[in-house]
């Protein structure tokens, strides 16, 4: 008898992780290029279910699903701009990178961009991503006019906030668990130039940084603060800006004012021993970074890539954290819980978790999506290496403070919170689950994140 060993992997399987390179799991990966391929992959799915994956920029286990069929959407990537209505209709796998390259020279910009442009439209909707303009413009989902969703039983639904609000908002922020976003139409904003006019100010300590943000953030479309996580003071640099108008540029620059070339500059060496990134090197980096910025500067002109996506200039920078990988701890707390920002910085410093990237931002109002992360208040994001001893306990302590303050963690960054934490901090989870159960009664869509957090 010629039986097949259940231990031999089939050729279409891959070990997948998120951007943080922690907790790998193996899945069958399908690479469709159109909706017919997607339907075939859905039909031939593993008994353990299906999940759509974009560019894998979520940090934890949101875009992987052990033993399941993972549909890599990046081959389904067509899109078109309609300048008359200022909308883009894009396939779920189209990247913001490709879209920006096409629409910026034509005088348009995406409504929301995260700190990397290497995300897909599907991933942007499923995580309901936010950008430096959240306080004024909300998250990505607020700009989506309609989306086409492929359900587990092979139906293609057109969802809009007006005609199918429950299904639409369950899919926005739904982390891929309601179906596959095959395409979407979203608003884009007109811009006169491809440059950003940037104002910079330094804050001498955390209170100073936060006071400056409270005072002036609403005057700007885009704002964010970088915090020096190793300096005890919590000093920081606030950068704020808006798309530069043509009349803000010197005459010589106007001819090329919509040029857009976000070139990748260097690749991070893949074999940096993880020990190299320690509190000392981060301290040196942070000192240089802080000094690099003037105490105050107005109307500096920066490129889109430099202002929004500085890390995209370094390919595979996620490897510098070594083989054990890293995570990003990102929480939001209402203004009444502002002191959690300071406590969390102190606790992370004490456990010896060096972070280059510690970013503080203010959020504006939430949208109707039950699982959307943003709420009005402060959001802090800090990258930390997973190898740090005792990090699990410290982060659990922080979770407790975040929950007590009425805040929560971001699914797109999470790789370690507990199911109880989610139940406590996403009070509309059961409401979302009811809609999801209706949309996906057989629970075809699942992910490692969903299993871990019992979503």
């Amino acid at each position, binding site marked *: 008898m010629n039986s097949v060993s*259940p231990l031999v992997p089939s050729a279409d399987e891959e070990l997948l992780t998120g951007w943080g390179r922690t907790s790998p799991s193996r*899945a069958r990966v399908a690479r469709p290029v159109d909706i017919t391929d997607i339907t075939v992959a859905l039909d031939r799915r593993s008994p353990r279910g299906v999940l759509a994956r974009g560019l894998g920029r979520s940090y934890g*286990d949101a875009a992987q699903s052990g033993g399941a069929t993972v549909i890599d959407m990046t081959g389904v990537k067509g899109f078109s701009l309609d300048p008359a209505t200022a909308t883009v209709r894009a396939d779920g796998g189209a990247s913001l990178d490709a879209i920006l390259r096409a629409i910026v020279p034509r005088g348009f910009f995406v409504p929301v961009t995260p700190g990397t442009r290497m995300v897909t439209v599907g991933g942007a909707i499923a995580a309901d991503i936010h950008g430096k303009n959240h306080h004024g413009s909300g998250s990505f989902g607020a700009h989506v006019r309609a989306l086409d969703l492929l359900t587990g039983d092979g139906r293609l639904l057109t969802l809009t906030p007006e005609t199918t609000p429950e299904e639409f908002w369950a899919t926005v922020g739904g982390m891929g668990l309601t179906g596959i976003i095959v395409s979407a139409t979203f608003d884009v904003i007109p811009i006169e130039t491809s440059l950003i006019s940037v104002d910079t100010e330094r804050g001498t300590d955390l209170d100073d940084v936060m006071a400056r943000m409270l005072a002036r953030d609403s005057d700007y479309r885009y704002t964010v603060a970088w915090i020096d996580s190793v300096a005890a003071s919590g000093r920081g640099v606030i950068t704020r800006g808006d798309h530069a108008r043509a009349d803000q540029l010197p005459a010589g620059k106007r001819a090329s004012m919509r040029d857009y070339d976000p070139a990748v500059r260097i690749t991070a060496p893949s074999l940096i021993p993880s020990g190299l990134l320690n509190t000392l090197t981060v301290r040196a980096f942070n000192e240089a970074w802080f000094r690099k910025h003037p105490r105050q500067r107005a109307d500096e002109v920066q490129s889109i890539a430099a202002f929004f996506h500085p890390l995209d200039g370094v390919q595979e920078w996620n490897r510098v954290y070594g083989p054990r990988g890293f995570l990003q701890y990102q929480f939001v707390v209402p203004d009444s819980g502002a002191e959690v920002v300071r406590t969390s910085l102190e606790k992370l410093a004490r456990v010896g978790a060096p972070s280059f990237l510690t970013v503080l931002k203010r959020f504006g109002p939430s949208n109707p999506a039950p699982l959307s992360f943003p709420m009005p208040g402060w959001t802090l994001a800090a990258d930390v290496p997973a190898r740090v001893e005792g990090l*699990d306990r410290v982060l659990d302590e922080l979770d407790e403070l975040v929950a007590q303050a009425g805040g929560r963690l971001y699914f797109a960054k999470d790789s370690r919170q507990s199911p109880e934490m989610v139940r406590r901090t996403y009070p509309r989870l059961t409401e979302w689950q009811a809609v999801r159960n209706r949309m996906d009664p057989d629970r075809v869509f699942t992910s490692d994140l969903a299993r871990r957090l019992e979503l």
Partner: protein
Amino acid sequence: MIDALGDPQSVLVLGGSSEIANATVLALPRARLRRVVLAGRPGPALDAAAQRLTGAGVAGVMTADFDAANTASHKQVIDGIFDAGDIDIVILAFGVLGDQMQVEADPALAVEIATVNYTGAVSVGLHVARRLRGQGHGHLVVLSSVAGDRARRSNYVYGSTKAGLDAFAQGLGDALAGSGASVLVVRPGMVRTRMSAGLPEAPMTSDPEEVARVIVAGLRKGKHTVYAPGPLRFLMTAVKAVPRPIFRKLPQ
């Protein structure tokens, strides 16, 4: 799922009352543990183990009937446990030592030891491997022994089953390479548990808690083989190099 910081949510112990395995469960990070299945022969030892873990604050402890010698039942037992939810860490801990002198007098006893330690482990090990591979993640921890590194007069039947088990577990680890699932082979020296009670202490004898710490560290670092205590690795390299005529004369 084992999270980004190495904290597991679910553990299955085969040989649920094993003192080493129970110490290992207690040594694992506990904050995310929500399901601990102690699979073993039903009886007071198994129930007491479950009570002890629960009493120590471990969440979700339950028992399941499992007899290593009853290989015909293994598929159903393992599928039943995995069907109820993914398992992050499986500890294959069952084993019997036997008395060498009795075993030589009654080969049927040797068959029993071989059936549990080797045949039973190969059977259930393959079922577990199939399920770990199917879920695309998870660790199988196999309790081998330094007794398998070199046969000794005093316990060579036991030692031979551990040698076979060890080779099986290594090969299984290779078969699973890249599957998301992995195998950790653990080679303790003598450990102070009921299994070794009454026997003279060998060099580098340890407590179950020490073995547990080595296992947890090995899992965290993604090791394939660990000795417990660690330096035993070097002692065993030396022991294996001793020529037979001399080895035979050493105190066993």
